[in-house]
């Protein structure tokens, strides 16, 4: 019967391309990592689900008129979703530990070496046949080393939209892998004695300092790096709403309902970029490899910088806290605390690591701004 033929012709079974099947397996893999392994589930679950949906034959989720098409072009291509996430993250971030010990900013700066070394590495991969990364591609890949999801998505959407899926997946995967990637590097670069160092208790930070801080960061960014102001500006708006104490309604909504809604859509939109053509190629392998390198180098640079800093400091600095400079808030700080406790069960480094940790967020936003300014469109 004709109807049955039409129906059969419209089934997935009759239309599957092998690449689509493979990408659905990738999507299922991301769901597995999110659910069973707890890898950044808030993002990887919608990303994985979006990857499945976008690869369904016939359904046309990412074609004109499809749901994921609308989500991607309205929210990610415009940069709106990552910026709203950044506003929410700003509203969740307490800069107290950083304000109390501002030299920790240098650790957040050092850890960005992961970004720029990876940029160099990505260009280097072009020597291998099959790779052909432009400087824009390489910059978008390198930002994985910033260990900051929305920054990576924002930059990739501007510099290399075709690589967006792979870059976002790599960024969130490695952020989830921080507890596995970082400890060996931290231990290799420090002595047992160094890991035992106890740090001076942080001073009290006043409400006024916390309130002026986001404005100061914004003004500096305006002066020196306007290209970073979308990211830094929305982050500082969120943080100002948090600290000013007069718009708690808005701050609560920004860090709860609004960020939740945007997270669902952001994940689905990123997943829509996980098509076979864009993902199933040697470049993705390169990106995944470079991402691991970026995190490792960033961690190492942070730890080494902390050792240098300790030499010139009158107050002792435990070099482990340098590892938190990659950002990956708050997981990297927790890893520092855990590794520290292994050497000295009375040494709680968590608060000390929060300084470099949030410094890393600023550092990678600044690095993203530099890349946008120098290689941007």
């Amino acid at each position, binding site marked *: 019967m004709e109807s049955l033929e039409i129906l059969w012709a419209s089934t997935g079974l009759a239309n599957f391309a092998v690449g689509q099947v493979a990408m659905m397996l990738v999507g299922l893999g991301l769901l597995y990592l999110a659910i069973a392994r707890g890898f950044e589930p808030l993002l990887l679950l919608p990303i994985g689900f979006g990857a499945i949906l976008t690869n369904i034959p016939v359904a046309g989720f990412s074609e004109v008129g499809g749901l994921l098409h609308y989500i991607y072009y309205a929210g990610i291509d415009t940069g709106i979703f990552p910026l709203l996430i950044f506003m929410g993250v700003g509203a969740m971030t307490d800069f107290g530990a*950083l*304000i109390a010990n*501002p*030299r920790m*900013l*240098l650790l*957040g*700066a*050092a850890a*960005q*070496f992961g*970004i*720029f*070394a990876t*940029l*160099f590495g990505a*260009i*280097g991969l*072009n*020597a291998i046949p099959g790779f052909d990364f432009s*400087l824009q591609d*390489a*910059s978008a890949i390198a930002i994985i080393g910033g260990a900051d999801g929305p920054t990576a998505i924002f930059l990739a959407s501007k510099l290399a939209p075709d690589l967006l899926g792979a870059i976002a997946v790599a960024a969130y995967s490695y952020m989830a892998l921080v507890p596995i990637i970082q400890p060996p590097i931290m231990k290799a670069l420090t002595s047992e004695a160094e890991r035992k160092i106890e740090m001076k208790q942080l001073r009290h930070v*006043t*409400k*006024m*300092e916390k309130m*002026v*801080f986001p404005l*100061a*960061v914004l003004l*500096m960014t305006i002066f*020196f*790096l306007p290209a970073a102001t979308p990211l830094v500006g929305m982050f500082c708006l969120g943080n100002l709403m948090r600290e000013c104490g007069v718009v708690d309604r808005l701050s609560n909504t920004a860090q709860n309902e609004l960020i939740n809604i945007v997270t669902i859509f952001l994940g689905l939109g990123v997943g829509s970029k996980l098509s076979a053509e864009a993902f199933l190629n040697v470049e993705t392998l390169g990106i995944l490899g470079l991402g691991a390198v970026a995190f490792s180098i960033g961690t190492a640079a942070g730890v080494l910088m902390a050792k240098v800093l300790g030499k010139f400091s009158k107050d002792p600095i435990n070099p482990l806290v340098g590892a938190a400079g990659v950002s990956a808030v708050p997981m990297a700080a927790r890893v520092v605390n855990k590794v520290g406790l292994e050497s000295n069960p009375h040494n709680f480094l968590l608060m000390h690591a929060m300084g470099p940790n949030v*410094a890393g967020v*600023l*550092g990678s936003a*600044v*690095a993203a701004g*530099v*890349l946008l300014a*120098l*290689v941007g469109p």
Partner: protein
Amino acid sequence: MENLSAVFAEAGILMIVGMGFVFAFLSVLIVAINILAKLSVKFPDPIPQVRRPKTVANVDSGAVSPSVVAAISTAVAQYRKNKIRN
């Protein structure tokens, strides 16, 4: 190869300029925070108005019974359950 080395050079410059800028930026921010800290001594946090309640609160919060927590959970669940029909 020549082309590649040109891009390499560009990447190298990006690395130096980029890291330099990041360090410079965050170093200036250190200075800014230190200035901020000095200025902020003129704007200390407001002193909490009453002192006594604190002890009361401590005593009380020790006394928060599991039943209260259960009631809250129930209330919250109840609120959330208030379902929308499709």
